[in-house]
């Protein structure tokens, strides 16, 4: 689960990580009011779940409260599409209003999970404010890492050694060292998968502050953090994806495809997408109904796929194990009857009760054809699309 910058900054502040003065505004007049309490230039930042806001026009610097109001007027209620948002337009409902900082130098600082080393890792780079993947590719020597033993935490000596290699003033490295320890405390307490401060700035007053903040919480840990769950902003999510999430379905909308896929098992779902693509038809979504989906969940899955206007054909590929195929068939038929939108389907059913399921589907009013296996189904799909 991703947090907004303003939410992340509240957390940073709680854990004694210095940030510039700032407040969130829900309207242009609020933005004006906050701006008038700030001396000097004001930064206004669109609160959306996408990186690369600056280049996309989601971050503006203004001189006075009246200009601040105008910028907020333009931003709030609008949408933002960035090079990192994959074509998605994110609605802007809030802006963050912050005092502008006088910056001498920018660093990059992050705590994340290193899945190869199977432990948390602290990443520091002197190339702040840049796309870190690019820095890693072009100048890997500018990226420094500390791997953290999760049973011990980041040893102060390791942090000291890393910082001493940068030849910073003692005052500065002391501040960064504290920030690292505090970020790790957040990382651990909130079960984060990522905390990214880009840039971490050194100001002309020799203060180290977090100018931007990105926090992602491990979805599988949310059960431990009901307070964090409340910070979830559903407006930043595709409506179908949100519906899927509420029904415990793994669903991802894909751009440009026409084939709606309903599969059980993540591996099989990926394989189904691949094969559909190879047969010359692009998948419109990834959908894993899971190993033990109920009739109701399958019905929801059908509705989510059928409500996608891009979908012209539906491919169902189920391998009955704990999931019974007849239960799945009932869910599909209910979905069709309650939603009342007929979309041609090609169905592959194997395993537990697949014969009963076929009978149920044959006797329904669905426009359905059966295939023995996935490759046959995929070529059937391409034929249907051509019609």
């Amino acid at each position, binding site marked *: 689960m991703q947090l907004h910058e303003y939410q992340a900054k509240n957390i940073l502040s709680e854990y004694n990580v210095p940030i510039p003065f700032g407040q969130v505004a829900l309207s242009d007049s609020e933005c004006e009011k906050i701006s008038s309490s700030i001396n000097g230039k004001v930064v206004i930042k669109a609160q959306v779940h996408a990186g690369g806001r600056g280049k996309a026009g989601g971050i503006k610097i203004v001189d006075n409260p009246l200009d601040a109001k105008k910028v907020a007027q333009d931003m709030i209620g609008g949408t933002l599409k960035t090079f990192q948002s994959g074509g998605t337009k994110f609605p802007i409902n809030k802006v963050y209003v912050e005092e502008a900082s006088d910056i001498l130098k920018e660093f990059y600082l992050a705590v994340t999970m290193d899945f190869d080393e*199977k432990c948390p890792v602290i990443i520091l780079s002197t190339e702040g404010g840049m796309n870190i993947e690019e820095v890693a590719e072009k100048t890997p020597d500018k990226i420094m890492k500390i791997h953290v033993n999760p049973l011990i935490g980041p040893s102060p000596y390791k942090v000291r050694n890393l910082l001493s290699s940068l030849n910073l003033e003692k005052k500065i490295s002391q501040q960064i060292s504290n920030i690292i320890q505090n970020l790790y405390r957040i990382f651990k307490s909130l079960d984060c998968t990522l905390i990214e401060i880009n840039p971490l700035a050194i100001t002309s007053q020799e203060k180290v502050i977090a100018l931007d903040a990105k926090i992602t919480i*491990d979805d599988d840990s949310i059960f431990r953090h009901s307070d964090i769950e409340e910070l979830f902003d559903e407006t930043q999510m595709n409506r179908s994806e949100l519906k899927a999430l509420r029904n415990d379905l793994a669903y991802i909308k894909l751009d440009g495809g026409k084939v709606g896929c309903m599969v059980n098992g993540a591996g099989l779902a990926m394989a189904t997408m691949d094969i559909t693509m190879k047969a010359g038809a692009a998948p419109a979504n990834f959908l894993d109904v899971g190993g033990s989906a109920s009739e109701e969940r399958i019905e929801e899955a059908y509705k989510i796929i059928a409500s996608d206007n891009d979908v012209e054909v539906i491919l169902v590929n189920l391998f009955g194990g704990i999931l019974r195929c007849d239960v799945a068939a009932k869910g599909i038929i209910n979905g069709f009857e309650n939603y009342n939108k007929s979309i041609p389907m090609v169905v592959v059913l*194997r395993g537990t009760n697949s014969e009963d399921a076929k009978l149920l589907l044959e006797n329904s009013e669905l426009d359905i054809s059966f295939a023995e296996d996935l490759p046959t189904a995929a070529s059937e799909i391409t034929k249907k699309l051509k019609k």
Partner: protein
Amino acid sequence: MNILNQDSNKVLIQGLGRDGSFQAERCIEFGTNIVSGVHPTKSGETFNRNIPIFGSVFEAVKKTSPEIGLIFVPAPFAADAIIEQIDASIPIIVCVTEGIPVSDMVKVNEYLKGKKTKLIGPNCPGYLIPDKKLKVGIIPGTIVKSGNVGVVSRSGTLTYEAIVQLTKLGIGQSACVGIGGDPINGTSFVDVLDMFEEDNKTEAIVMIGEIGGTKEQEAAERIKSSISKPVVASIVGQTAPEGRRMGHAGAVITGKSALASEKINSLRDAGVLIADSPTEIGLKVQELLKIK
């Protein structure tokens, strides 16, 4: 193949809720010797007519000496169950549970270091050795056939997919191992490849990987350096978008090395026969065994 304790066959099962109980029955049906269950509030009761349930793993170990532990405990408590079984010195643990917090798994991984216990999973279907009537996990016992091909996969459903194809073609399996779809897990592709290499019965290997991480590349390196048996591999997720979690917590493209194409290239470079799609695995293995 003693690494997976195929000859001891004494299994403890922890977590006897709806799924755990159902799956325990399937294991028993297949011929697995389940000697005890563990459940915090059902101590003193029995399941499946006469198998004793204990309140703790230590007690179950003391009374029934299992050598394999199978975990179905819900995600919030699963890491603790793994640690309990490690502390009770159970040599092999299979954790089926999906959705364990990453922060819990990094601790488990650290705790495992230097210990003799081997962990398979989490978020995995476990393993099955047809010849020994040993089924530890949820791989359907009805689709397997005893034989000489070792199957290893990150995905549960694709493990079944491969097994079904092989069995249909009359090709049996020496062992089927699901290592799980989480980014942090116990046993890796490399561990299982080594096991298959050592095992006299295994003549060929099927490996099914997916996007995310670099474990398939590590496997490719191992195959190149020390696996003499022929390998057929398939990698799914070729059409997956970047940065999205494709059902499995570990199936996310985060940089070039996580791409399916990169993994396929490394494996091909290591001399592995690539099945373009998992639906072609059976035929590829058949092709390979004929040449042999």
